[in-house]
């Protein structure tokens, strides 16, 4: 006699109370499950529906908005695989393709910073591997509460060590990213990780269980009790005060196991041994079985007793829900299975046949010989609920925010006041050197890194035999999005696009990670709708399609939502990495040229926030045509080898760009920006860049043909940074406050 809740038992006991609410399903969703099955679900089925229909897995609140990215996308010849797969795939020429994606691991990183961040990297790397690609680099976008707040040190130290610990041990260079601080992230840090991989076109893999009779192979780590309910419990609800008790929901990472898994899977792909592959991430086996079965041409039969367990006493529901890391599910033809198993053994990766692809359209899971799950897999993977959540602009709050412009704030006027403002900004946690973070990341491994932090974008050569490379930038700005989510999303997009163009690479496509508060709050939903609309329209204007990404809702503590924070990763291609353009001044005697137009746009700026703790007004004007023209100019100038450096202007404006350009290689600059020095230095107008050149006449002429305003503002050289009629400061005096801040805060 057994007390397993089989399909038979479920049919016979329709009135048994079930804990659907605790698992995160709403009343109507539970009723819908019963309707689909024609009976009550078994415990196993209930667990599967609860995770697969969770916000995290089903995108039920965001789906109606995300459709804009797929419908009417910008024209692109480069897209090989679009949204909907594990990651989008873009053609970069020479028979090579690149796949990249950014994903959040926010809630686990708050509960358990090291493991949350580490497994965030591990998860996105497996998504890239699943496409058939060799992962070649990672990036991270991090946001925390005020730098000096009590809990921030714990989170920063743990998250940075976790991102580094996992990526370093995996052998993936970390080539860039960003770190931000704002009180709205105090109880809800953002940990977004991006991975990029490269593959020959013919190695592209898809997550499908095709061909009745093919075997289902589980490869990698043992399945344990970690991460149970991670997707439904952690990622799909708001934190109240029970963070501590959710710790068992956080997975534990083993980067060594993942390194083995990567090498093993790549060799499986290269030898043509797999017919389909899916990584195990959120919702573990439930998701992998459901998605591969739903997207294949048949059904699937699984014997759960065969899954190798870390703890023998695990219940079937726990096995289905476990989010143990470093596992992959492969579909293998029977004649290939011996070779596949032998190959896994060579790498020391555990591999076990746990099921097979069947005729028909049912996903049937057995336990101790009894059927505990019998469902149509599409009902789990594709037919989840879709919500048109109510959305409403919070007029009173938003109007007050817009009306509260920065115009009334005291501005520095004298040269000394300008210098003190500059020093305050460069020493602020918001704008200071990120070296304390980036030194904890290996940027050299694999030997292809051409540019990494502190340059505007990361640039990686795609192999030893080619000069072809890719560039990536990952950017967000929650303050602009708070002021105007539509414009803010476009400004974020434009910044990442501009950063890629500054390196000399042509922007091709984007991946986005949309971090917002609770979708059950109409004001948050309005922010989300505005941001996605802005992003979709921005992508059309810039000609860069969205290849995929991730939505993270419920980023709030109590009633306070984070600043809406779309984080945008832009991928570009560079035909010859020897033509890459660094961000810092490299030689004396080069002319410094400012590209683009500067207006008095200081609302939402770093200056307003750092000096006055003020956030209000309207973000800088979005000028996507100007962004496109600027990018065209930067690419042509890079192709013509006209630029010795190029740095985008964004947070902190021209002042910050000049400081960074001087400090990277220790080459100073003397500039003359006229009488409106404050606005020139600190405005954050979009569509601008700072370049250095040995041939300013050629750059100005080229700028004219692209319709980009350009003017020479000075010259590089010396060990000082000076602004005519305002101030002069030695680079050593500038470097000290710039470098000291993060080590002083976080040790």
């Amino acid at each position, binding site marked *: 006699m057994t007390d397993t809740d089989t399909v038979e038992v479920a049919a016979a006991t329709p009135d048994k109370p079930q804990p659907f609410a605790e698992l995160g399903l709403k009343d109507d969703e539970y009723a819908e499950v019963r309707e689909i099955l024609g009976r009550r679900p078994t415990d196993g089925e209930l667990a599967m529906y609860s995770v697969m229909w969770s916000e995290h897995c089903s995108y039920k609140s965001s789906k109606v908005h995300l459709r804009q990215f797929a419908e009417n996308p910008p024209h692109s010849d480069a897209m090989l695989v679009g949204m909907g797969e594990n990651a989008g795939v873009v053609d970069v020429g020479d028979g090579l393709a690149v796949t990249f994606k950014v994903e959040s691991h926010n809630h686990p990183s708050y509960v358990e910073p090291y493991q949350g961040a580490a497994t965030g990297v591990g998860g996105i790397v497996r998504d890239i591997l699943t496409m058939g690609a060799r992962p070649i680099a990672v990036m991270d976008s991090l946001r925390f509460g005020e730098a000096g707040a009590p809990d921030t040190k714990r989170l920063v130290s743990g998250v940075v060590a976790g991102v580094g610990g996992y990526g370093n041990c995996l052998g993936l260079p970390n080539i860039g990213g960003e770190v931000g601080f704002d009180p709205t992230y105090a109880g809800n840090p953002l940990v977004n990780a991006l991975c990029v991989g490269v593959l020959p076109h013919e190695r592209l893999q898809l997550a499908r269980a095709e061909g009745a009779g093919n075997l289902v192979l589980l490869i990698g780590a043992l399945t344990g009790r970690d991460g149970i309910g991670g997707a439904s419990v952690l990622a799909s609800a708001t934190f109240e005060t029970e963070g501590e008790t959710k710790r068992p929901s956080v997975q534990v990472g083993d*980067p060594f196991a993942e390194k083995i898994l990567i090498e093993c899977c790549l060799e499986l792909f290269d030898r043509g041994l797999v017919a389909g592959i899916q990584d195990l991430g959120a919702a573990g086996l439930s998701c992998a079985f459901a998605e591969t079965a739903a997207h294949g041409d048949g059904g699937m039969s699984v014997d759960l007793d065969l899954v190798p367990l870390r703890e023998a006493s695990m219940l079937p529901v726990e096995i289905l829900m476990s989010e143990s890391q470093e596992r992959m599910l492969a579909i293998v033809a029977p004649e290939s299975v011996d070779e596949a198993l032998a190959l896994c053994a060579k790498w020391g990766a555990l591999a076990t046949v746990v099921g097979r692809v069947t005729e028909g359209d049912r996903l049937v899971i057995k336990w101790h010989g009894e059927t505990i799950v019998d469902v149509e897999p599409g009902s789990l993977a594709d037919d989840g609920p879709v919500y048109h959540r109510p959305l409403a602009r919070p007029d009173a709050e938003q109007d007050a925010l817009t009306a509260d412009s920065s115009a009334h704030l005291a501005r520095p006027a004298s040269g000394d006041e300008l210098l003190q403002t500059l020093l305050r900004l460069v020493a602020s946690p918001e704008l200071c050197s990120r070296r304390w973070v980036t030194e904890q990341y290996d940027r050299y491994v*694999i030997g292809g890194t051409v540019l990494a932090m502190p340059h505007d974008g990361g640039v990686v050569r795609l192999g030893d035999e080619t000069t072809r490379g890719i560039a990536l930038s990952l950017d967000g700005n929650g303050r602009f999005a708070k002021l105007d989510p539509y414009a803010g999303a476009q400004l974020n997009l434009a910044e990442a696009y501009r950063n890629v163009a500054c390196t000399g690479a042509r922007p091709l496509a984007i991946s986005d990670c949309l971090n917002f508060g609770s979708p059950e709050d109409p004001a948050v939903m309005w922010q989300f709708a505005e941001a996605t609309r802005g992003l979709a329209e921005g992508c059309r204007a810039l000609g860069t399609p969205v290849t995929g990404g991730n939505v993270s809702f419920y980023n709030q503590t109590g009633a306070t939502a984070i600043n809406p924070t779309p984080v945008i990763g832009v991928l570009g291609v560079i035909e010859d990495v020897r033509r890459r353009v660094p961000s810092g001044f490299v030689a004396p005697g080069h002319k410094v040229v400012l590209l683009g137009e500067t207006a008095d746009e200081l609302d939402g700026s770093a200056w307003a926030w750092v000096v006055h703790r003020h956030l209000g007004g309207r973000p800088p004007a979005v000028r996507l045509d100007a962004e496109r023209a600027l990018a065209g100019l930067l690419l042509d100038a890079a192709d013509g080898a006209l630029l010795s450096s190029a740095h985008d202007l964004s947070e902190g404006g021209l002042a910050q760009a000049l400081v960074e350009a001087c400090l990277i290689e220790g080459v100073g600059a003397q500039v003359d920006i006229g009488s409106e020095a404050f606005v020139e230095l600190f405005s954050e107008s979009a569509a601008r860049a700072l370049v250095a050149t040995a041939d300013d006449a050629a750059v100005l002429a080229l700028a004219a043909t692209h319709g980009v305003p350009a003017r020479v503002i000075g010259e590089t050289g010396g060990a000082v940074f000076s602004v005519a009629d305002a101030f002069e400061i030695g680079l050593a005096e500038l470097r000290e406050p710039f470098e000291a801040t993060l080590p002083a805060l976080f040790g």
Partner: protein
Amino acid sequence: MPATTRVGVVTFPGSLDDRDAARAVRAAGAEAISLWHGDATLQGVDAVVLPGGFSYGDYLRAGAIARFSPVVAEIVAAANQGLPVLGICNGFQVLCEAGLLPGALIRNAGLHFVCRDQQLRVESTTSRWTSHYSRGTEVVIPVKHGEGRYVADAATIEQLERDGLVTFRYIGGNPNGALNDIAGIRNSAGNVVGLMPHPEHAIDGLTGPSVDGLAMFSSVIGDLVAA
């Protein structure tokens, strides 16, 4: 004209910079031979590089498991017969664990992983791997490690210094708290060298901070060709 020099590069599970080491070997003009940790053969190579990474995850102690692998047993035997062996980062840790070099590498004093372009001074050119440098030359080679703090008992340190066995020393800041700023050492025969910095990441100005690392590989290859 001698046949092309063959330099073995070992891959353990968890090796990361093995392809980079092979690239450096090729850049210096030799053939790179891949050696698998589980095979008890060196395939007749003329020299061996133990690359960086996290062999076996480094979960017990860096290099502690790798030293027991079949290939390392072969390397120890051959090194004692004079085979040139270079251990980089994790490879240095393996050489210390295997007893080919004295001392140990422990967690960085700052407790963080450190990746930076590091200034070094070449202290000894009387080894198979450093003969193409000039003594006292200052070079820039990346470091990237969490457990790179070289320690040994006082007598060992004294002997290393007295006998000129310190091959590289950190200058312009010690990244990990190593005793006497030691970045790399050699055995007294001069055929075995271990160092924490990564010369294989300083062979091309496009992807590294300098080309200062290439001389390590050309030293041994030049010696072998000359022999």
